[in-house]
């Protein structure tokens, strides 16, 4: 009986001492962590992709809690919803940011860009770029080894077997991993645009027109036709390459029509309806547009007739 009492008492005293020590140590070395960090982290997508510029979602949550002005911060994966939710928790203001998407600025498919040599080295764009300029006459375009596909953690890029070029799928969150991975810098983050509609120059070849055209039939030759056509001054031509500023572009698609090499791509637009010009550009142009429209109308009507027959 006595033994049992002593044992229980000893254990109880030891337990109490240990608990007291642990309690005071815990108080002494307590690290205060803002509970809001956890709350913010909850709403973040937990992709840990680094698209925000921070090492992981927790670091981004910390940054959001710590900085007073969070208008510079943005989670491209979660987009406006996530940012609003996070800002709601913190009671801070966020700047409205447009959803972005990565675009591949190269259209050097096997047909457009004939091969001039064959590469049989390591299947890595970075290695290939460190060895030479590529297996075609264009030293700026896609090498096709798929470093961007490797880099993508969202499974949003795949290589098109036919064209040998990467294709960016709609689930792209614009984290920018592929942009960093591409040694040729052909991937750019651009505005998704209303209804996912975008217009961009799908070429990065800085060579002079003739040289570029010889290497790739879909190359931008720097002819400046699009620049002259653009009513919004959105297009600049530098180093023989046109660039469309996505903040100025109003998606009128006039540049797409005038590009002689089809280097300007339009995405997700419905097929263009040709009607008498409604935008009222300068007189002669309107006439030509009308003329074009007429001819196309004739064609369609004749087609219809054929169908009817």
């Amino acid at each position: 009986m006595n033994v049992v009492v002593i044992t229980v008492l000893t254990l109880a005293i030891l337990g109490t001492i240990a608990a007291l020590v642990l309690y005071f140590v815990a108080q002494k070395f307590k690290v205060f962590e803002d509970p809001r960090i956890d709350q913010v982290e909850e709403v973040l997508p937990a992709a840990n992709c680094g698209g925000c510029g921070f090492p992981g979602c927790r670091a981004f949550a910390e940054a959001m809690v710590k900085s007073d002005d969070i208008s510079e911060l943005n989670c491209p994966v979660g987009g406006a919803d996530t940012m609003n939710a996070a800002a709601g928790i913190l009671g801070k203001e966020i700047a409205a940011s447009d959803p972005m998407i990565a675009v591949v600025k190269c259209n050097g498919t096997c047909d457009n860009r004939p091969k001039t040599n064959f590469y049989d080295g390591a299947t890595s764009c970075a290695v290939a770029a460190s060895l030479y300029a590529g297996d075609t006459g264009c030293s700026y375009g896609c090498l096709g080894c798929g470093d961007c596909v490797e880099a993508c953690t969202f499974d949003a890029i795949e290589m098109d077997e036919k064209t040998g070029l990467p294709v960016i799928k709609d689930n792209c969150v614009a984290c920018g991993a592929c942009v960093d991975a591409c040694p040729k810098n052909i991937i750019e983050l651009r505005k998704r645009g209303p209804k996912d509609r975008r217009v961009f120059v799908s070429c990065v070849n800085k060579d002079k027109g003739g040289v570029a055209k010889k290497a790739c039939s879909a190359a931008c030759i720097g002819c400046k036709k699009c620049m002259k056509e653009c009513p919004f001054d959105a297009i600049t031509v530098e180093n023989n390459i046109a660039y469309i500023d996505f903040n100025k572009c109003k998606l009128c698609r006039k540049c797409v029509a005038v590009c002689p090499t089809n280097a300007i791509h339009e995405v997700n637009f419905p097929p263009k309806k040709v009607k008498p010009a409604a935008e009222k550009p300068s007189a002669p142009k309107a006439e030509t547009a009308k003329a074009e429209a007429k001819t196309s109308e004739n064609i369609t009507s004749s087609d219809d007739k054929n169908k009817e027959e």
Partner: protein
Amino acid sequence: MLKTFSLGGIHPPENKFSAGKQIEVMPVPAQVAIPIAQHIGAPATPVVQKGDTVKVGTLIAKSSGFVSTNIHSSVSGTVFKIDDIVDASGYKKAAIIINVEGDEWEESIDRSADLVKEITASPEEIIKKVGEAGIVGLGGATFPSHVKLSVPPGKTCDVLILNAVECEPYLTADHQIMLEKGEEIMVGTQILMKSLKVDKAIIGIENNKPDAIKHLTELASSYPGITVEPLKVQYPQGGEKQLIDACIKRQIPSGKLPIEVGAVVQNVGTTVAVYEAVQKNKPLFERVVTVTGKSVSKPSNFLARIGTPINNLIEAAGGLPEDTGKIIGGGPMMGKALTSTEIPVTKGSSGILIMKNEEAKRKKMQNCIKCSKCISACAMGLEPYLLMTLSDKQVWDRAEEEKIMDCIECGSCSYTCPSQRPLLDYIRLGKGKVGQIMRSRTK
């Protein structure tokens, strides 16, 4: 027991088909394209314009910094244009294109074949002349020679080592220079010794060139201070660090230059160029190029003007064989596959190697089996399999710790790998990145 370097090394088949073939002088082409970046360092700045008339040896591009060098016209004629052309790197780079008219040399160049033994120039004048003549290391690295000769303050040089190893398989340009220009090498060595203020010079030759060893040993007996050192055949003995280790048993610390151990290394071809620059006033505008390969009908050594399209050389060596798989600029170990036959000969073109289709093909890469052959082969004591993984996974800080920058890119690891892993390709990539990071840190 012959000397050699202590770490690693491999024995690739030598295949020196063009050995003993007399140096043939290539006819001057109708047009030359002279790149302005033919050396390590800043590209030269063109000083001629479209339509200017130039003679052989006229300065056409000026050195644009300390580590940079002059470029001279290799032909006489009119500057056609300055435009971007594809060079040996595969990328487009600026070059001066000259249409050839006649073959008129600058008057200052002494074109006689007489040997001028007496060295009148002072050490400073020698370095100045070497710099003005646009001389770079002709072994293939193309490091400006005047930089090597200018011993930095606080350092002393006590021995000059002449690199006559030519350890790359196939290549024979240096071998042939030694046989044909032995006297010039000796005087050139004396000039270099004078400029470095040393009284000892060692010519390191691998003993697969017994005729060159014999010839130079005979000549060296009448020049005080110069000795010929026959070396055991082993690749990459032509690497500066390996050659110093082999000849004088001194090891250069990681990340340092040969001057740290009191040695300066120059290639034999460079030595002849130095002789010609100092004694004959002739800038560097031509070089000996080996054109060779198993399928080449006439493997040869050519003396070609800088800017000659390699196509001309291949034609002179019997034309491009039908089953050609790769054309390599340089030797098979360190050379680069060329993408066009229009690429011009530059100061660094030591050879043009034509490989047959079946021998040029890379085999399929397999998994690393951790056999450690690459470690045994590495002449710098590195772990290539690890460096490849680190480069692939982009662990740059660890790669730096593992001394990736010490790699001399000799290719022994890739050569020896039984799984055909492209070790060097990845290491080269890693070197580029780590180098960038290190430079950004010092800024």
